[in-house]
């Protein structure tokens, strides 16, 4: 028991991490170039013909965004992906309590939150909104590429535009928690090299951490 906090806790496998970063890289590229179609001033970032380049980069990025993340999840991280999907769509009382307390928790780092599983309720919401938003963005985006009908454009362009900004707000919160928040920053290594600090794991994902430990001890017995 003495080395309980010396060993890093394994959290995410390689395939799962690759899928995450593929999605992150191309989503952010799509978001930034896409915002140039709403805030025209941003096109200056890409030079004189900024809007033409924004369009090209936007279209190129759509391919890996659409056709790489899901195969990576399914083929390189099948088990973890299944566990992720099952977990984020399964909600218990602790999750509901977590959501209730979340607004005060992001302002006060000492707020006491209920114990969580592998994904806390905030991450579950982030996952669900990202999945739904991504599906909408992919469908409306490819309709834009393939359709030559202006009446169709009148439907998909507004949806693509509005959902992009809402999804942007979701991802902004996600990035803030992993890059800025003083306590939650410890989650980031889990998505980089796969391992997280054990104290962080016990504090943030108590139920998952305990399950991992007892599984390990059973295996060692």
């Amino acid at each position, binding site marked *: 028991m003495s080395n309980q906090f010396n060993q890093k806790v394994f959290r995410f496998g390689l395939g799962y991490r690759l899928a995450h970063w593929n999605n992150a890289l191309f989503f952010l590229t799509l978001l930034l170039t896409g915002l140039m*179609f709403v805030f025209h001033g941003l096109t200056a970032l890409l030079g004189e013909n900024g809007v033409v380049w924004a369009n090209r980069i936007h279209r190129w990025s759509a391919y890996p965004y659409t056709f790489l993340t899901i195969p990576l999840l399914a083929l390189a991280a099948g088990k973890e992906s299944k566990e992720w999907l099952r977990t984020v769509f399964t909600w218990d009382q602790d999750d509901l309590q977590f959501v209730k307390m979340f607004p005060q928790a992001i302002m006060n780092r000492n707020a006491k939150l209920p114990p969580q599983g592998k994904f806390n309720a905030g991450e579950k919401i982030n996952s669900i909104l990202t999945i739904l938003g991504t599906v909408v963005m992919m469908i409306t985006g490819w309709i834009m590429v393939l359709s030559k009908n202006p009446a169709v454009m009148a439907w998909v362009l507004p949806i693509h535009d509005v959902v992009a900004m809402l999804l942007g*707000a979701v991802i902004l919160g996600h990035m803030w928690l992993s890059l800025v928040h003083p306590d939650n920053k410890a989650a980031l290594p889990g998505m980089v090299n796969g391992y997280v600090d054990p104290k962080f794991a016990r504090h943030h994902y108590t139920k998952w951490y305990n399950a991992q430990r007892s599984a390990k001890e059973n295996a060692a017995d």
Partner: protein
Amino acid sequence: MTKRYGMVIDLTTCFGCQACTAACTTQNETPYWDGQFRTKVEDVERGSFPAVSRTFFPHMCMHCDEPACVTVCPTGASYKREDGIVMIDYEKCLGCKACMEACPYNARYFYDEKAVKTAGQIYGSSNQHQVPHVDKCLFCYDRLAEGMQPACVATCPGGARIFGDWEEPNSPVNQAFKAAGNKAHRVKGTAIAYISATAGQSGVLPPDQASPTWVKAWKGAAEPAARAVLGTAVGVLAVATVANLSQKKKEEEHE
């Protein structure tokens, strides 16, 4: 004073010769082979014998005060000039065609890749249309810059098209409009007025400018709401950053 270029179209003198259509086509090198024109004279027959009437009805881009096409354009390719001309920057146009659906007057068409190729053969390799783009009447802004009238106006044998600046009291458009008395009708929210024998010519004249519902719902409600959500997220996170960091600092000082 800023200009407001516009046109008066006199239906009482238009006899449907399509000289304006032809002049516009050659001046602006438009794809007539696809049946696409920036302006055209419609031959409108109404009623049934013996109570029939026939009107030649020239129509084109109305150069709206608040153009829905400009509102929906994602790149700024469609924009409005100080002098009121609604312009298209071909290089910036991505061909998404949202503007075509937004235009209440059906004044826009798509100059597609095939038409661009054909244009190279018909109008020469250095013609105005090098890339696919949405196209429409631009009031012959290039001719105006050289002190000339738009091609359709200069050509019209009946003098049915009068061009000028609405802001200039003695301009040709204002003179023609005043002289026509109650036969003159300015289409509200646009730069175009019609003169017709029976005032209003219900069913022939274009309706007053109104953006389609989807444009209003999108740009007037849904997009501002989404922007507000995004802005609120940025604000909340900024406050939360300050709150967390100052709390951490305080706690560290206590230790």
